[in-house]
């Protein structure tokens, strides 16, 4: 099937943000002083990308989500290694590009308000363009190595944006942590791609999904090979998508600007892992081990992160843990075979989580803080923010008929079919979601105002003593995002969305709408319980939280507040004590004491030998004569005795 669109046009999706990045970088000396055009350049580019994406989505819909055929280009051809680059455009890609470009555009519009007055305004938009480009590349390409390249570039953008305010040591540290932890997972992906190439001789995604999987089914290739490959993919996904045990970077990543959190750490980049596993869904399906692995990791993460979110006092961290938890949902959805549901949730989550983050950003603009203990009562001064935030929270909590409900419901149904234990845990997590979200709403918007934070020197934001509603660009974006947060779920009714996404699979099937009354009731009850509980505890103060904290729930609290000891385990024990304190020290000892010492020893010995040797040369002529004659006699004796 020849593609109805020119390849160049597709590349433009990626090319426009790249151009934006290059342009801003090139004009940086000017834009540094007069930053406003930077935002326009970036938005124009991403707007263009969005336009093309939507067009392509239409095309993809037209093709029922089946991949369109594009040419591939040779990038590297050495020996048996052939790395090509080409476009993979199918329903999945089209949906992803639209989500990415749409959220991206909205976030950038929002950013023009949020970042106004920041010294790094232009730099910010350059980074954002870079990120968008990388993310689109990740989604679009058809070769595993190239995908990996974009995968890492996305990480780079994330690194740069988390560390955007690098003058804050916490931001710099968080950026490093994010990069390192995700890279640990990336190693798995790298290993997987090396492995599959060595074993199967191809890096083409489509080939792997069809021929290689087929070869395994035919017994031409070991099942282990596929499993190891899939496990490697899972490792990569776990790192990038902040799943247990590599989730620890995401909460720290909240040190970045809030729009960044919204775009990268909620809507797009962190779900790249989901995309990756979805991309290789046939592989995952073919490997039960990997499926189970990801299912249990996902659901465990969903629950654990939900628990930790309950005790967070920083609104962004609540959202971060919520993101981790929600991605856990998508992950176990993939693990349980709910491919389409996972992506449906990915899409809805992108919108409502971005909305929530941007709402948090709006609040931050007013109060100069993310600490919910210093907020309260903002409902009256920030009505738009409040309303949209509540919509987002409801959607997230899975309240019918908002978008979140439909996507989550679909996952739960599949889980129920597949593995009731997972369903049960997911249900608990769902309740927790509702609980912590409304805890956050209550603490932030209800009650009385608790003073806000100090404005940062050189930062933006206004007078925290008198909070006010944000600028039009920010409010407008919140409203715009609220629309899909409410309505995106309706795409599922005809099974359209599922059809598009399923079209990406080698053996596509017609998507259809699923609904299960039992599951619906269960999830709704749980959500209601969560909301009710939060309101009861934090608004109506039916239970004394402080007493609980110091009372019988103290160990639980401590465990939750220390993030279930994961940071401690990794940072303190693994990195600080084992790696730095043990391994590095030991090796450095070897380095300092080993080779050089040995050489010093040789040098020392020969030097000392010289020092003593020269004493023989004591200027006594008869000493010399003795040596002379003795030399002769000894040589003769030795020869006669031993050789002759």
């Amino acid at each position, binding site marked *: 099937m020849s593609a109805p669109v020119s390849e160049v046009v597709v590349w433009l999706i990626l090319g426009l943000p790249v151009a934006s990045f290059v342009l801003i970088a090139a004009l940086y000396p000017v834009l540094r002083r007069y930053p406003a055009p930077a935002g326009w350049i970036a938005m124009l580019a991403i707007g263009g990308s969005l336009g093309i994406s939507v067009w392509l989505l239409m095309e993809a819909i037209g093709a029922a989500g089946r991949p369109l055929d594009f040419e591939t280009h040779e990038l590297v051809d050495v020996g048996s290694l052939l790395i090509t680059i080409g476009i993979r455009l199918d329903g999945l890609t089209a949906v992803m590009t639209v989500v990415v470009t749409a959220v991206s555009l909205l976030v950038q519009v929002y950013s023009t308000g949020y970042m106004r007055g920041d010294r790094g305004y232009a730099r910010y938009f350059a980074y954002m363009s870079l990120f968008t480009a990388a993310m689109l590349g990740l989604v679009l390409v058809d070769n595993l190595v190239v995908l990996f390249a974009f995968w890492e570039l996305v990480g780079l953008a994330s690194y740069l944006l988390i560390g955007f305010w690098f003058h804050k040591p916490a931001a710099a540290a968080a950026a490093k942590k994010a990069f390192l932890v995700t890279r640990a997972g990336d190693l798995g992906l790298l290993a997987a791609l090396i492995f599959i190439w060595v074993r199967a001789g191809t890096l083409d995604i489509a080939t792997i999904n069809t021929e290689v999987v087929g070869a395994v089914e035919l017994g031409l290739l070991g099942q282990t090979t596929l499993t190891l490959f899939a496990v490697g993919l899972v490792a990569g996904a776990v790192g990038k998508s902040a799943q247990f045990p590599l989730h620890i970077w995401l909460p720290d990543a909240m040190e970045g600007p809030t729009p960044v959190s919204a775009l990268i750490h909620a809507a797009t980049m962190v779900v790249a892992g989901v995309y990756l596993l979805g991309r290789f869904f046939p592989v995952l399906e073919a490997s039960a081990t990997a499926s189970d692995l990801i299912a249990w990791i996902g659901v465990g993460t969903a629950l654990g992160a939900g628990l930790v979110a309950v005790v967070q006092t920083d609104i962004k961290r609540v959202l971060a843990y919520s993101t981790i938890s929600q991605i856990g949902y998508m992950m176990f959805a993939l693990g349980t075979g709910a491919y389409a549901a996972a992506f449906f949730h990915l899409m809805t989550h992108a919108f409502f989580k971005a909305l929530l983050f941007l709402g948090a950003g709006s609040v931050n603009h007013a109060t100069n803080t993310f600490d919910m203990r210093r907020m309260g009562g903002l409902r009256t001064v920030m009505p738009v923010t409040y309303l949209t935030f509540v919509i987002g929270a409801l959607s997230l909590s899975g309240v019918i008929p908002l978008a979140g409900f439909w996507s989550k419901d679909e996952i739960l149904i599949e889980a129920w079919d597949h593995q009731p234990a997972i369903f049960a845990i997911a249900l608990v997590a769902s309740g927790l979601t509702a609980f912590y979200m409304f805890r956050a709403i209550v603490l932030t918007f209800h009650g009385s105002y608790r003073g806000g934070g100090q404005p940062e020197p050189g930062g933006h934001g206004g007078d925290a003593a008198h909070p006010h509603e944000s600028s039009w660009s920010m409010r407008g974006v919140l409203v715009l995002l609220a629309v899909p947060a409410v309505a995106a779920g309706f795409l599922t009714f005809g099974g359209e969305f599922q059809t598009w996404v399923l079209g990406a699979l080698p053996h596509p099937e017609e998507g259809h709408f699923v609904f299960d009354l039992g599951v619906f009731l269960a999830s709704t009850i749980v959500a209601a319980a969560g909301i009710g509980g939060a309101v009861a505890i934090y608004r109506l103060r039916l239970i004394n939280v402080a007493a609980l904290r110091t009372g019988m729930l103290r160990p639980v609290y401590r465990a939750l507040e220390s993030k279930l000891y994961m940071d401690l385990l990794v940072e303190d024990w693994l990195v600080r004590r084992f790696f730095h304190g043990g391994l590095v020290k030991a090796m450095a000892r070897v380095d300092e004491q080993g080779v050089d010492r040995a050489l010093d020893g040789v040098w020392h010995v020969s030097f000392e030998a010289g020092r003593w040797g020269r004493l023989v040369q004591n200027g006594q*002529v*008869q000493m010399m*004569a003795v040596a002379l004659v003795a030399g002769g006699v000894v040589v003769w004796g030795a020869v006669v005795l031993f050789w002759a």
Partner: protein
Amino acid sequence: MTIGLEHFLVLGALLFGVGLYVALAKRNAIGVLMGVELMLNAVNLTLVAFGRFVESEVALSTSVFVVFIIAVAAAEIAVGLALAMVVYRNRDTINVDRVNLLKW
């Protein structure tokens, strides 16, 4: 027992060894030179003995050799003594164990 080549050779060997000891152990430079002379005499004796006893054309060359050795020995001694004098002038001693400014 006939007095044969071996007798002279052993005698030469003994003389050589004693001369060597004198050269190696005596502290006076002139004493050392005496030892050297003894060694050369031992060589000469050996050569002459070869010339007397060995059945070949060697006789003539040994004699000539000995003459050359004697001449050279004389020259060597002369130069040696001259050098000893110079050392004496510089150091007021000709004891070789004290002539050790140059070392290490």
